[in-house]
């Protein structure tokens, strides 16, 4: 990847009627942004939600965001992220059964459960499934500004 590339985890909300247009494809083709779709759902009334990780230069990012806005798509930053309390995790592996993106996976042959936050779509399934409650949900940004 080029030097000044950065990545962002975004939630795109597609209003009714927009879920079938190829906007994500255009982000790649027109704005040179690489994407990794972590979660995508279309709800019964045809609105869609997609969690994706975007990679690109800040400039292309800005242009891509403007394009999404113009297409009527609501863009949100993931405000919460999943963390793991390493002291509490027993590496049992129960969470790997429910993690939809493979962010939680068993590494072999050592059988440690590894957590790759880059792949996490913040679906929160692991938080309730983890037997010793090692997984937690917390805001991405600190609530209080640093002094």
């Amino acid at each position, binding site marked *: 990847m080029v030097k000044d590339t950065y990545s962002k985890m975004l939630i795109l909300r597609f209003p009714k009627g927009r879920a079938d247009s190829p906007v994500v494809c255009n982000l790649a083709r027109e704005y040179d942004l690489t994407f990794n779709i972590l979660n995508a759902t279309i709800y019964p009334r045809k609105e869609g939600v997609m969690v994706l990780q975007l990679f690109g230069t800040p400039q292309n990012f800005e242009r891509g965001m403007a394009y999404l806005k113009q297409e009527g798509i609501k863009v949100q930053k993931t405000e919460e992220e999943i963390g793991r309390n390493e002291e509490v995790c*027993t*590496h*049992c*592996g*129960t969470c*790997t*059964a*429910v993690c939809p993106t493979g962010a939680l996976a*068993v590494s*072999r042959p*050592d*059988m*440690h459960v590894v957590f790759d936050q880059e792949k996490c779509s913040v679906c929160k*399934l692991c938080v*309730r*499934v983890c*037997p*010793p*409650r090692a997984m937690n949900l917390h805001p991405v940004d600190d609530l209080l500004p640093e002094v």
Partner: protein
Amino acid sequence: MSEFKVNKTYAEINEKIKSGKVVVVTAEEMVDIVKENGPIEAAREVDVVTTGTFAPMCSSGAFINFGHSKPGIKASKTWLNNVPAYAGIAAVDCYIGATEPCEEDPLNRVHPGEFNYGGGHVIHDLIAGEEVHLLATAYGTQCYPNRRIEKMVTLKDLPYAVLCNPRNAYQNYACAINMSTKTVYTYMGVLKPRASNANYSTSGQLSPLFNDPLCKTIGIGTKIFMGGGVGWVSFQGTQYNPNVESTPMGAPVRPARTLMLTGDMKTMNPKFVVGVSILGYGPSLSMGVGIPIPILNEEMAAYTGVGNDDLFTQIFDYGNDYPAGNAKSLQQVSYAELMSGSIRFQGKDVPTSPLSSIVLAREICDILKTQITEGDFLITEPQGMLP
């Protein structure tokens, strides 16, 4: 004349432990040793094989005596951190079971329930040295007139706190799959519909009872690693069943033997006694258990040399069959395949997840190995054999 080429006694092995000459390996290391040198050579070389397992073991709990108050009480109901503990025993004795949810838990009213705190958590908190709230109520007698006591206690304050687990260290366990069309939340974890994932719970080749499949050295009175401290095999566990189909090496291919274990909580480490919450099922306790297997002869070397390729279990449907009480095997599968992360089931690849921590099982094997090598842990000859 013995039927074996290598013959060692418990006493001889203990002499080696005391003199620092003992050779101890983990069950995992033993698999390779036996494969390379054969059981006779392995039996000559190795004196003790350490085994270990760490997983939820629901049939666990603690007998606690909380000491007499002034005036005295014959407690008829007790709670520890708002979790009911059975008090239908002597005046200030109670038994806190691992799967008891706390009062006012919404349980499964909103399914699947989270079960954030229960008996297993109380046991963990006590071992971690935390203060626990004790409430006892009584109807009052002439010898014990008090009707209610309430106090904060720590493990140190308690005159007696002993884990007494009626069923631990299951020898083999089912692999769970869901053949129904809806997700189910079971004690075997979350199972997605249409056989989309498979969960299993054993440490396989590290597991104590897989290394002594016919219980030739593990019996009543065997000293073990229990929850980071010292424990003992007290008896066969509940649901103990030796009459199960087995491999030629004696390893059962479905759930079989179990152990009842006892150990002083005051010797234990909270890392190996962990309160857990099983979504949609209830609270429980994950226990770390390790048992040293003395290599008395080449037969024991051969048993401990069996690897995951030669250990098998059955796949059961937890969507329809198991809840209806009609569990039947859908397929046999090896632990080598289960631990690879994917199994071949009915023509498709199904991802697998463990519920049992191999990481902690290995750590237990290593701790036990160090303790024996350094002379801090002697092996014990059973005082009675299991059926």
